[in-house]
């Protein structure tokens, strides 16, 4: 009986897939359904009450949530602006024949991605200290500026988070684009050379279109990563309570409601709004980029 089963070619694939199915049902579908149900409920320890769309209507009028939503959205847009074109251009430069010390620079740029957010947060929190003696205030002093209270003010606090993101992810995104560049056939550039194309034209009409799959991939993961940013802000501001909520993100608000205030129902609604916004942006983006047309 056992022997017949382990030699059975029909049953085998399902046995192989089984661990995924179990984990998927237990730790993905089930929490997903739970969060949808809870978002229509008032959840208190020991009691749950159906309240319809109350959590969602409350969210719309919740000024703090709108602050969190705006912060996350702003952060996502800025990470897209900074962390797609710049790494792409850096990848093209480092890939060119003129580059010396390619491997060294690739590693050097990648190193920040190896650090934990905990460590990165500690470094940035104190490098952006508000004292005149902190690293970044010494830097701005070189340009004749007075010291900033970096983490107390909305704009500068936001800049700290962006600098942290650029520090950690520039090298990683550059590697993505480098691996994309490897897939571009060299003949395209050769024939462009014959036609007398200049560097800009080659970049514009060969590199950018050919890199499109990589760009779409980086764009897709960056959209959710930007919208779901939380732990960076948590570390830099030493907790979830930044002055005037300047560092509060959607997930930060979810954490505050769900973990700190134990309002699981309300927090679930926050999570689902994030899920829907991210999904919508990505679907629109993928559609505009024509990903669905190809049929793979």
């Amino acid at each position: 009986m056992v022997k017949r089963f382990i030699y059975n070619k029909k049953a085998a694939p399902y046995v192989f897939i089984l661990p995924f199915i179990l984990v998927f049902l237990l730790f993905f579908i089930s929490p997903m359904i739970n969060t949808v149900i809870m978002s229509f409920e008032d959840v208190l320890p020991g009691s749950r009450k159906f309240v319809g769309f109350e959590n969602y209507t409350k969210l719309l009028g919740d000024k703090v949530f709108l602050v969190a939503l705006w912060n996350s959205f702003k952060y996502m847009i800025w990470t897209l602006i900074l962390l797609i074109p710049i790494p792409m251009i850096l990848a093209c430069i480092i890939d060119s024949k003129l580059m010396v010390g390619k491997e060294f620079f690739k590693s050097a740029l990648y190193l920040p991605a190896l650090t934990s957010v905990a460590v990165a947060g500690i470094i940035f929190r104190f490098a952006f200290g508000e004292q005149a003696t902190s690293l970044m205030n010494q830097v701005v002093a070189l340009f004749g500026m007075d010291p900033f209270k970096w983490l107390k003010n909305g704009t500068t606090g936001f800049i700290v988070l962006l600098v942290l993101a650029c520090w950690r992810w520039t090298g990683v995104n550059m590697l993505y684009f480098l691996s994309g560049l490897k897939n571009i056939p060299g003949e395209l550039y050769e024939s462009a050379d014959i036609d007398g194309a200049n560097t800009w034209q080659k970049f514009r009409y060969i590199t950018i279109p050919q890199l499109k799959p990589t760009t779409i991939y980086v764009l897709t993961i960056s959209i959710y990563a930007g919208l779901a940013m939380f732990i960076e802000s948590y570390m830099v501001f030493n907790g979830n309570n930044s002055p005037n909520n300047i560092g509060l993100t959607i997930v930060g608000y979810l954490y505050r409601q769900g973990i700190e205030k134990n309002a699981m129902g309300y927090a679930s609604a926050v999570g689902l709004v994030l899920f829907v916004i991210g999904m919508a942006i990505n679907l629109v983006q993928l559609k505009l980029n024509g990903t669905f047309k190809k049929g793979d």
Partner: protein
Amino acid sequence: MQSNISLNSKKSAQKNAVSRGKNLPKRILIFMLFAIIALILLIPFYTLFISTFKDGALVIANGMDVSINTAKMSFKNYMILFTEKNSLFTWFFNSLFLTILQVVCQLFISAFVAYGFAMYDFKGKNFLFICVLFVMMVPFEILMLPLYNQISDMHLTNSYIGIILPTIASASTIFFFRQYLSGIPRDLVEAGRIDGASEYGIFFRLILPIMKPSFAAMAILNAMFSWNNLLWPMLVLKDSGKFTLPIGLNTLLTPYGNNYNLLFVGSFISVIPVFILFACFQKYFVEGMTAGAVKG
């Protein structure tokens, strides 16, 4: 014909030499650009390193900077770390244990699942694979609250099992292994069957050994994520004796902890193992990291 080729190569060699001379300013410019970027990206590490020799409370009070004042610097923090009773080594070994446990389980189970996806055709395969892609796309933060509820219902809070279970069949690892296995001819599996091996015997004895290179790439990537992970372990673990290094470092940052001397040394030693791994296995880092992007 032959002379023609050699003539051509001579010509191109000449052309190269000419372009090298002409491009020298460009080369220097590009090199300088990357040197400056690398310098900026590496300064935070340097700042952290310098800070490990400074008095912790003073760094907190003045902010981090790059100044070296040997009169005020000492090995005191390292002395405290190695001679006085402290939690850092407990956290360090907790992190190490959790990382190894998580990576071993993840790799083994994900490889098992990926084999099912790559080597069999069965009903529901496409749908299930779309589920894998879907899990990859949804950020963990959205599910963290219901997942946390579920883990506490299962009485798994404050345990390492509770941390590793939800991602034990890691979607991105499955995806990577499946890509890798698609390159292995199915004839090999068929040959195993003809030799009388069972379906699972083929996987364990025939396929697993072939997968070694892909294991290296995923082991390193997953180990890095696991070693650096902060959010989920922070939710699950309650008991400071079980904390991992990133959680521990975060607790050192609170105003109640007066262990500022350990904060920077601790951050520094948490970065070291990943750097060593990176230096030894750089190739695999890049391979694992960019696996998703190549196919788009």
